[in-house]
């Protein structure tokens, strides 16, 4: 009787541990790299579980529209991913997102899925852009900065505001 209670206790502790681990993975605080703009955000352009499953679809689906039809105001852009998820080094420079332990490679190494985006695409934001205010200032000042990293904002409201500004600027 006594020993069986012990087993149950041990099993309970193990179960609780496993649940905590799964819970930790699911809540996903650990995936976002500290020091990136994303670390200070509530959510990505879509809920975290949707992003985890579908981010590659979002990017692949829209890239043809951008390259072949010139549609630049798409909701999901790789440049915006980089703008948000690259961690700052502290001197205005950024860690490449595919460096060991950084946002992209963190998961991709774990699941052994090779990542080829960055053979061609930039791994870092072009320049430091920590706030939306700064971004708006750039947009006001430079008509071409709609292409700068982070131009697609993080939440819909910001995104729409930015698009509105881009449209104004390009007129």
């Amino acid at each position, binding site marked *: 009787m006594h020993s069986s209670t012990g087993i149950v206790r041990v099993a309970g502790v193990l179960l609780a541990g496993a649940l905590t681990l799964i819970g930790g993975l699911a809540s996903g605080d650990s995936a976002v790299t500290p020091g990136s703009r994303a670390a200070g955000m509530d959510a990505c352009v879509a809920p975290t579980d949707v992003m985890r499953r579908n981010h590659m679809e979002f990017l692949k689906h829209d890239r043809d529209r951008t390259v072949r039809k010139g*549609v630049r105001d798409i909701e999901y852009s790789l440049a915006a991913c*980089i703008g948000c998820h690259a961690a700052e080094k502290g001197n205005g420079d950024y860690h490449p997102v595919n460096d060991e332990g950084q946002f992209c490679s963190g998961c991709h190494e774990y699941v052994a899925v090779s990542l080829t985006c960055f053979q061609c695409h*930039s791994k870092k934001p*072009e320049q430091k852009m920590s706030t939306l205010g700064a971004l708006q200032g750039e947009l006001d000042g430079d008509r071409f900065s709609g292409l*700068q990293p982070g131009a697609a904002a993080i939440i819909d409201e910001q995104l729409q505001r930015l698009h509105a500004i881009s*449209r104004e600027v390009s007129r």
Partner: protein
Amino acid sequence: MKHCKEQPEDLKRREFIGKTVLAAGAATVAPGVLLAVANAGSDSEGVNDGVRWGMLVDSNKCVDGCTKCVEACESENGIDRMQRPPGQDDAMWDAQRPQWIRKVKLRDKQTGEITNLPMMCQHCEFPPCVDVCPTGASFKRADGIVMVDRHTCIGCRYCMMACPYKARSFIHQNVDNQSIRTPRGKGCVESCNLCVHRIDAGGSTTACQDACSKDGHQAILFGDLKDPDSDLSKALRAQSSRQIRADLELNTGVRYTSV
């Protein structure tokens, strides 16, 4: 009838007026909303064939020894960020590094007359590079810009063989530190895209044109060939110009005067 009598005549009229005012209010709001939706639609449809981007180069104004357009292009498109592979000699590096625009010097063998001109992708209406591409990576946008979709380019270089203008470059090396606006990687072909990132952002000039104008030469004029009121169309109407290798009947988007 009985129902009507229960309600005072006055109240019915008030109700009617109230509803009318509400409906009118809704109608005033609706066009604004619809307008916003329509704008979003046109943005996400992308480019259309209502425009055709082209260029006029006045080679009389193109100065011997000036390379401002080439430098501006390299800086605009991140070509100057490329590093020479360790151990590669000068000749190999010059032959292999990408070049979207280059200066060509012509000399008339009989008279000795020298003509300078910048040569780049001519953005043909019937581009041979698109004809030969086995994957469809080489393509022409609706607005006439001939481009390479690096997502589908397999680096076979047929397009480089097919191009009569030697306009395309192949990336032979691994590339680091790309610019956001011009992705670039080993194993793909690329060429002048008329600063497509500027056009998509609503711009109306290319980097080479800006640099040439800034230096006071104004040899390059960029614009819409289909718009009869554009500066480009007016200039083409006003003076005689020619296509390089017009005999190939590719109907190039880039034209030259004084050649």
